[in-house]
């Protein structure tokens, strides 16, 4: 019996290939995304570990840098020994011109400044580094500026050796650095450490213009010794915190959690589409062998045996698919990792991952999902086989009659699923992750509902299309549509697969366009100043802000003297680490009229501005409100005005407004300069906004002159300016880049469905070879036959396209109102971009058309006699 299965599949290698390919692609999607996310996480963890070493605690500044005097005090006054300072900054590495053959001649590296004397207590990998130094290497490192140590594989990769010079681009200037030695990173950390350039802290401070400040201090403390931690805390000035290393890195890693969850959901969509494929091929294999199965039944094979036979086949296919899916998935993960890393860098935190990481869980998950998806999809075909009746089996109409019945009966679960979606959406959300999970459940449930309802609507649509096609293509049109109806059990699966993927693509497309529209619209109103000045370093990553204190009073006073300046606004970013979470505070000094940049959720916002300016009040961004369940009238508590030795206390600030803001997924608290100054002293600004008079703005020449003067003023300060228009443009570029990964996945899902519809058509072709042969024999030419095939698939494409439209809208609605809001707390405008609809329609038709090419060509070549002889 099993041998017959083997023979069956060996005779139809293409059939086998498609079954395997479908599930393999689905598995590949799941594995690829899983692996890419895991690698990103792992990369982050490794870089945290390699930086933290044995450190249990870390001292960090709310402005990303902290005064080096803290280190002096802790070491020389408090007498802490296991403590080391660190500067870490992403800079660009430029290949020398003699290595010009390497195309990517600029890449990111981490410039790390250490104090070699305090390293051994914290980090262990540096031990080898010191050993690699020969002669007076350590002397050079300490006493000669611009000397670095690099990881050994870095040398190899760039064909460099000790004694060579490498160039770094820092603040738009090229700095040559002498490589005086190397270190061998432990294997686990190698992918992280190979982009690290280690230098003495003095060199790094001078290179980066970081005099007086460091990035962090790592400490080894007895975790249970609360007296000690309290003692240290009292040494720390305002806005400098002692945090536990693991809670801090967890808090950072948590930033990208929603993003990763969204990716995972997308991968399951791929798997879902893949399930159609396996269903399709298994069902086809059953239907094709009806007579064989019927004969087996006559020979006494039990229903149970047949059921088992089909599931065993499915199991075998699953094995093959999972194997190839894993291989494909690894390939995919390589591509996705690039996008994931870039998005995380754009939006969340500095991350460099070039190496894929995997673990058994990823593989087990892939096996579990691949296997259950395959077996689940094969369940129906297996039941079908089991209930094959010896006589009835030979009549196909039996199956079709059943499908007919089903299409009506499926209405019930379909409608029930719809109700369920509503019910799920109305479950009150208590936990954010649960809320997201429920959101995703509602998305998948609504897809299920659609699938259930699909046969019913397709039938009526086909009924209508039969008339249209007959009008358009005469008899072939009618035959084509009838063919679909007659083989409905298979064609509906192809249609469903296509519909689900096209509607997903459409839904995602609408969501992205709506999001983009919203952000575009928001930027238009939000960016008020005519020019912005910010740190030149912060273009690569929004995480590293306010590196230096370049906005001294002199600069601001010089700026205000520029002709045409109406107002200089300022922005300070402050970060608090409260209850193991980062809270971002934006401190603004803006002209009164610019307050209109904020659009509030509440209807009555007349008193907001006054409170914001004068009271202990803040406004918070929508995602912040969502994340912490806050609303107007609630309070936020921030640690304030801590003098040395004093126990910090928390000041309450009343929330007077919740405003739309798409700049930060984490959300921000927004405070006026005057309020901030009442409680804190630090005035390190991160950005300035320049408001120009109309006179300058309306005169191109004057504006150009203004820009020249501005450039002159800020040159040499590692600052750069950008016009409102360019900032707007750049923000959208980053936005688009963020959704590149979505587009890649969208295309993959569509590809899976394309394979799906192709298999379905191949199945139809194979099965009806005899039928077509009769048609050929009765006078239909090859060309007419292929036209028939094209009409048939196009009709299926039309059905899918038409049904995908409402489904796409519903999905977009769920993505925007449920998923996005629950993941990020952003509410968006809902727009229906016509181009997305046209694209979706075209996609469905194109997929259908392409899928028809091979069958049409093949059938038109077939000799009718050959096909008939097969009987």
């Amino acid at each position, binding site marked *: 019996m099993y041998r017959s299965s083997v023979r069956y599949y060996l005779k139809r290698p293409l059939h086998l290939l498609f079954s395997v390919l479908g599930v393999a692609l689905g598995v590949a999607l799941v594995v690829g995304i899983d692996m890419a996310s895991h690698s990103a996480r792992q990369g982050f963890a490794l870089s945290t570990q390699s930086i933290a070493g044995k450190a249990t605690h870390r001292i960090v500044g709310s402005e990303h840098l902290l005064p080096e005097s803290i280190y002096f005090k802790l070491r020389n006054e408090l007498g802490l*020994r296991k403590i080391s300072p660190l500067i870490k900054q992403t800079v660009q590495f430029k290949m020398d011109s003699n290595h010009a053959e390497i195309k990517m001649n600029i890449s990111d590296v981490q410039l790390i400044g250490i104090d070699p*004397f305090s390293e051994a207590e914290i980090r262990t990998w540096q031990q080898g580094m010191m050993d690699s130094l020969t002669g*007076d290497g350590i002397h050079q490192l300490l*006493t000669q500026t611009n000397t670095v140590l690099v990881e050994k594989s870095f040398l190899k990769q760039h064909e460099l050796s000790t004694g060579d010079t490498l160039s770094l681009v820092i603040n738009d200037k090229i700095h040559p650095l002498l490589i005086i030695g190397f270190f061998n990173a432990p294997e686990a950390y190698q992918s992280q450490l190979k982009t690290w350039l280690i230098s003495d802290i*003095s060199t790094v401070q001078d290179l980066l213009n970081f005099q007086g400040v460091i990035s962090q201090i790592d400490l080894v403390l007895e975790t249970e010794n609360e007296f000690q931690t309290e003692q240290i805390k009292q040494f720390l000035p305002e806005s400098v915190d002692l945090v536990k290393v693991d809670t801090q890195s967890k808090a950072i890693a948590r930033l990208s959690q929603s993003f990763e969850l969204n990716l995972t959901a997308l991968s399951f969509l791929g798997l879902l589409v893949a399930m159609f494929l396996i269903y399709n091929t298994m069902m086809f294999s059953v239907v094709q062998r009806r007579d064989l199965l019927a004969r087996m039944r006559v020979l006494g094979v039990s229903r149970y045996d047949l059921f088992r036979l089909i599931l065993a086949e499915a199991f075998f296919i699953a094995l093959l698919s999972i194997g190839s899916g894993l291989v494909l998935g690894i390939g995919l993960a390589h591509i996705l990792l690039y996008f994931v890393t870039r998005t995380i860098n754009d939006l969340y935190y500095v991350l460099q991952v070039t190496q894929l990481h995997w673990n058994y869980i990823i593989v087990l998950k892939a096996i579990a999902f691949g296997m259950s998806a395959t077996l689940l999809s094969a369940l129906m075909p297996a039941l079908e086989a089991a209930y094959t009746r010896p006589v009835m089996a030979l009549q196909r109409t039996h199956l079709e009659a059943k499908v007919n019945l089903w299409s009506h009966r499926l209405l019930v679960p379909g409608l029930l699923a719809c109700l369920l979606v509503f019910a799920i959406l109305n479950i009150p959300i208590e936990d954010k992750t649960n809320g997201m999970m429920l959101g995703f459940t509602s998305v998948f449930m609504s897809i299920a509902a659609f699938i259930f309802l699909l046969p019913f609507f397709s039938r009526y649509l086909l009924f209508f299309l039969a008339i249209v096609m007959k009008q358009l293509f005469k008899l072939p049109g009618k035959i084509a549509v009838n063919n679909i109806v007659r083989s409905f059990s298979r064609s509906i699966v192809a249609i469903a697969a296509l519909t689900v993927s096209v509607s997903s693509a459409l839904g995602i497309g609408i969501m992205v366009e709506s999001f983009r529209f919203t952000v575009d619209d928001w930027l238009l109103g939000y960016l008020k100043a005519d020019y912005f000045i910010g740190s030149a370093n912060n273009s690569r990553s929004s995480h590293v802000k306010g590196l230096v204190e370049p906005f001294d009073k002199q600069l601001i006073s010089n700026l205000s003297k520029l002709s045409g300046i109406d107002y200089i606004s300022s922005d300070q970013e402050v970060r608090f680490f409260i209850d193991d979470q980062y809270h971002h505070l934006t401190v603004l000094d803006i002209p009164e009229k610019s307050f209109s940049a904020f659009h509030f959720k509440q209807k009555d916002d007349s008193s907001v501005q006054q409170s914001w300016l004068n009271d202990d009040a803040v406004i918070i961004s929508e995602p912040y409100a969502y994340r912490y369940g806050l609303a107007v009238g609630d309070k936020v508590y921030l640690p304030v005005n801590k003098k040395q030795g004093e126990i910090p206390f928390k000041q309450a600030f009343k929330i007077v407004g919740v405003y739309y803001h798409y700049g930060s997924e984490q959300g921000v608290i927004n405070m006026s300069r005057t309020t901030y100054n009442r409680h804190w002293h630090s005035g390190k600004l991160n950005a300035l906004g320049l408001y120009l008079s109309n006179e300058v703005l309306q005169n191109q020449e004057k504006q150009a002159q203004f820009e020249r003067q501005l450039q002159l003023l800020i040159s040499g300060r590692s600052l750069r300016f950008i016009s409102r228009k360019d900032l707007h443009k750049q923000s959208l570029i980053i936005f688009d880049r963020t959704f590149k990964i979505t587009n890649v996945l969208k295309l993959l899902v569509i590809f899976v469905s394309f394979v799906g519809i192709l298999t379905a058509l191949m199945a139809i072709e194979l099965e009806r070879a005899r039928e077509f042969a009769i048609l050929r024999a009765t006078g239909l030419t090859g060309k007419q036959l292929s036209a028939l095939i094209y009409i048939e698939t196009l009709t299926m494409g039309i059905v899918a396209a038409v049904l995908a439209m409402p489904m796409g809208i519903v999905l977009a609605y769920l993505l925007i109102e449920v998923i996005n809001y629950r993941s990020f707390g952003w509410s968006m405008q809902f727009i229906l971009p016509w181009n997305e609809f046209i694209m979706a329609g075209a996609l469905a038709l194109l997929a259908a058309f392409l899928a028809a090419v091979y069958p049409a060509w093949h059938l038109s070549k077939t000799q009718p006699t050959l096909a008939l002889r097969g009987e």
Partner: protein
Amino acid sequence: MKGVLGETDSVQNSLFKQVLEPRQFHFPQDHLAHQAYKTEWWYFTGNLAEDDLEKNDLKKNKRKAKFSYQFTLFRFALRPDRVILENASSPGSQWHTNNIYMAHVALTDIQQQQVHQQERFSRDGLKLAGAEIKEDGVVQFWLNDWQVKSLQAHQLFPLQLDINNDQFALNLQLDVDKPMVLQGNHGLSQKNSKNASYYYSYTRLKSEGNIRINKNLYQVSGKSWFDREWSTSSLSDDQTGWDWFALHLDDGSDLMIYQMRKKDGIKDTYSSGLLIDAQGETQSLAAHQFQLEIKDFWISPVSGIRYPIKWEILIPDNNINLSVSSTVKAQEWSKKGGFSFNYWEGSINVKGLKNKQAVSGTGYLEMTGYD
């Protein structure tokens, strides 16, 4: 920290200032770092005893606890030609450094036969370590929170020595009992035909304060010795090491003796000594005027190095015949024990005859080059 103290090449070495002729000492400036010379040290050693105990304890016939300590601050200059790059627009990093400071602290519990040791390194950038006069006139030598601070402005003594560790702590006040003495030729101590150092000592310092070992606190007093030395090079190619003795005798006199050992094991003629009587009068001893005889060895279980821990010192011209033995054998610093150098530095007991009178005392012994 392997490599940190690696030898700079001889070309670089020659750019440091050499000790060639006696100098005029100026204080307190000469207590501070001499940046033009390559190496320099501040060397405190002392023997302490627990102060008189409560009467109850006496009844129980409890013996007084005895301790000895060593605090040494070394400075190693990195480059003689060092030019700190000054950036016109910015003041430059405070972390720039041209000196590595190393400190060794040892506390020996003689009764318990236990030795507690700590080694630290630091750069002098950011003022993490150094030897300076502060703005308020306080003379200070420090490496992180291990600090020596003068208690009066512009003069070193009296001073406060504060060493705090998890394991043990030393908080002592030291004051002069005898004036400073210049070693060698008016403070120039010739180590071989080419090399010399500037060398002066405070041989007898009243010492009192507290020490803590783990959680036990002791009030102590005793005598300390402070050596100051700086140079650019010390050993010649045929010299392997030295044996250095600093003795406080109970007749009020002090004795310093060192011998430079050559590779063939013979005492170098550049060895010398200094006898300081109770009034502070000094008498130099040339190499031929004293003999050092080894009476016993101890083999370190940690390093495997064999150190002579029992000696006989003979100064025939002065009728001095002293027997010296270590209070605790394991007062060794070794690379295998996790430190940067191999040497033996520890307290000793002295017994013998001086002018046919029985004499005893305490002191410190340093031995290098036995590995």
